[in-house]
């Protein structure tokens, strides 16, 4: 399917259960959805699972899409909601693991984030850096996280972010600024804690 299909046509064809149209939608938007999920989750397999869930949700509820917003805006919203839910599930899981460790004095299975001696200019492992980023970004309030990821990972304009977040452009500006300031503080704290 070489020719560009308009989003409205695409939606109508998926609603008519045309598999090729759905395939086209997945191929067109998969990188965008995956990047947003990864920006919030910082874990590739988890982001892939959530990306699949996003498209399943689209397939299931395409007939409910009224076309009041852009298709990409709708996809971003589903991706953000599903990623935030996954983050909450991870948080709950972590709390249960902590309780388990406390009650049964078990040691955690996952290795702790360790930052090597940076004076030796040793590069951090990709996994460790992912963990550092996850730790810092997860500490931000939810709306700051969303605004930061959409601005930094998806490189969207403040206007596009305001449409997705259903807020004003000035609020987005403020959210991104506060997110960066807070992130800087978190990263300083993380860095100092491993010194």
């Amino acid at each position, binding site marked *: 399917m070489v020719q560009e299909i308009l989003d409205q046509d695409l939606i109508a064809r998926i609603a008519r259960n045309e*598999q090729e149209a759905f*395939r086209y939608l*997945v*191929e067109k938007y*998969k*990188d965008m959805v*995956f*990047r947003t999920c*990864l*920006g919030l989750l*910082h874990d*590739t397999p988890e*982001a*892939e699972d959530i*990306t*699949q*869930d996003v*498209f*399943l*949700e689209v*397939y*299931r509820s395409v007939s409910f899409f009224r076309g009041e917003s852009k298709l990409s805006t709708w996809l971003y919203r589903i991706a953000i909601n599903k990623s935030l839910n996954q983050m909450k599930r991870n948080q709950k899981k972590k709390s249960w693991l902590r309780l388990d460790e406390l009650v049964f004095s078990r040691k955690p299975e996952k290795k702790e984030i360790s*930052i090597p001696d*940076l*004076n030796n*200019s040793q*590069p*951090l492992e*990709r996994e460790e*850096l*992912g963990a*550092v*980023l996850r730790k*810092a970004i997860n500490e931000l309030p939810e709306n700051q996280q969303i605004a930061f990821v959409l601005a*930094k*990972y998806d490189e969207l304009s403040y206007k596009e972010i305001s449409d997705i977040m259903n807020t004003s452009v000035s609020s987005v500006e403020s959210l991104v600024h506060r997110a*960066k300031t807070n*992130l*800087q*503080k978190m*990263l*300083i704290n993380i*860095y100092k804690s491993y010194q």
Partner: protein
Amino acid sequence: MNCQEVNENMLAYLEGSLGGDLPGRMKDHIETCDSCKAFQVFMLQVNLQIEDEKTRVPNPFLYTRIQEKIDRKHELPVHGLYPRLLRSPLYYAAVIIFAVSLGVFAGRQLGGLMSNQASPAPVLTEQEKLKQEFYLQNLENDDISQLINNIDQKP
């Protein structure tokens, strides 16, 4: 410029969004300060991690996997109260509490039934019946019985 100021502006410095003479002052400080240089390396790596995550792409078989899930209809996310309930720890806690309460209730009922069966109304022997009658007859001849009889007989 001190280390704290440098640390607080590092993200903006690396993004190139600092204005005025700040970038130059930051650069001068970092060149002469080992701890700020190390922090700059750390922040550069964090920035590189973001850039790396931005370039990652999903599995090329993503569509096939989604299609497989669609084909296996039972794996589609089902909306509604019941499936959500099944996934909730509260649901399991409620089931356990209900089961324990049911057990206690059934136990009490069964216990009561057993105790009733265990102590049925005593069956009196002929000798015991005679004893009881003798006692009642004697009671009629008691002083108190007489007194009561006298009261009743008064006009």
